[in-house]
């Protein structure tokens, strides 16, 4: 039986809903501000800036670019958005690769993501006026098995020796294998994930690594769309709320008070 507050709101989730609505309102506000011409300044993301360099390197070396969007589905609440973020980066990489005539290989694990990835890349090629260069066989479904995908990806890296290997999305235990193999294949590597257990592996084995929230911001950063950049400022409001709650929670817990915990449990 579901217990509710005010007969509608599910108990234990009201505080989360309020926080969510506040962050959403802040994000909407900053988007409106951006529409009015007040676009916030973004700090530079070295990893995202390096994407153009990696594509250029691959072209100069006459080697392909491998760009993957992680191994998660589009459905999961926490990892699905990482796949969406990875697809945003893929969209940018595909457009650039089409413009400069580089071959782009996209390894895919989830069958449900394959049509989306193929559509994103194909349209990017068409928009660049290079529709004939798009090869559907380069959007490669490798395996739905995690380590089947991993071994296939490693084989792909060693066979193709790409000039650039871009991995942005949700990765699990295979992250180390992919990053290390990419390094051995001589590829310039840009990685990014919000999976905290995998970030250290990407950090040590790739040239650039996007950490946590940077993954979600990459698409907005690359597009330079004022509305998307404005939405990033909304995150800062959430960050301020989180900081206040952390400090307040630490202090109250130290003095033995459960007030904040009780409020959060509503």
């Amino acid at each position, binding site marked *: 039986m579901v217990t509710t507050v005010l007969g509608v709101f599910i108990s234990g989730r009201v505080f989360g809903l309020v926080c969510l609505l506040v*962050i959403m309102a802040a994000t909407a506000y900053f988007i409106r501000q951006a529409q009015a011409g007040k676009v916030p300044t973004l700090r530079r993301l070295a990893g995202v800036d390096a994407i153009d360099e990696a594509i250029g390197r691959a072209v100069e070396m006459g080697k392909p670019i491998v760009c993957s969007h992680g191994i998660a589905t589009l459905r999961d609440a926490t990892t699905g958005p990482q796949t969406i973020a990875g697809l945003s980066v893929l969209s940018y990489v595909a457009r650039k690769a089409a413009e400069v005539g580089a071959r782009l290989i996209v390894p895919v694990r989830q069958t449900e993501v394959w049509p989306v990835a193929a559509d994103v890349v194909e349209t990017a090629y068409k928009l660049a006026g290079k529709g004939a260069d798009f090869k559907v066989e380069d959007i*490669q479904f490798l395996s739905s098995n995690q380590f*089947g995908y991993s071994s296939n990806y490693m084989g792909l890296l060693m066979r193709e020796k790409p000039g650039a290997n871009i991995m942005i999305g949700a990765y699990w235990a295979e992250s180390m294998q992919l990053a*290390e193999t990419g390094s051995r294949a001589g590829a310039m590597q840009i990685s990014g994930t919000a999976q905290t257990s995998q970030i250290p592996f990407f950090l040590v084995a790739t040239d650039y690594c996007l950490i946590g929230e*940077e*993954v979600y911001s990459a698409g907005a950063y690359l597009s330079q769309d004022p509305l998307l950049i404005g*939405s990033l400022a909304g995150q800062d409001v959430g960050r301020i709320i989180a900081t206040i709650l952390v400090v307040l929670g630490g202090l109250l817990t130290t003095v033995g008070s459960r007030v904040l915990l009780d409020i959060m449990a509503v």
Partner: protein
Amino acid sequence: MSNLLRRIEIPIFITIIFTLIQVIPYYVYIQPLDDAAAYIQRWILICLALATFVGVLSLLLTHGKNLQKRSKGWYFSAIVVVFTIVMSIVGLPLAEVGLGAANPIYLFLYNNMLQPLSGTMYAIIAFFIAAAAFRAFRARNVEASIVLLAGILMVCSNAPIFTVTWPPFKDIGTWIFAVPNMATNRAITIGAALGLVALAVRTLMGIERGYLRGGGAEQ
């Protein structure tokens, strides 16, 4: 008509509606919405079942071309094609004709090929970590030196030879894991969660279009 169907607003509209139907019942208890969310989950399962064929077709397309062109390593493609076809046929959910997960050929391939190969791939991660650690643990600057020191202390706290020789190694390792590691972990997790919410808002407002064809650009 075809131009109308290709309008970018259609997938954005579908995304917004289906996202809201899934998100609202998490916070608000409204029986019809709950039912709608459960109903959509069933749709998703059907879509996923159909997507399986997309994967098989993509696999056959890629490796079929390798075979056709006799590309380098074509014999590996032959193995993939043969086993994809065999597994696809014997794994069909038609128990009445002896196919499916209980089929002896399917079970043999699953237990004696897929499982051992997956286990092997998982196990070799240890060697990749060792190789990466060798490259990462170099005291090139202050930050790298801190990582190196923390790494050495963690190794010492996990290796019985060191904890037996000097028991405080265990406490130091526990402290590193529970305090600085946990603080960093939570900071990244909170930051990632906020980024996720912002992405969700952008998607719901229809301005995050990177996942749409060509980044959502009109054609």
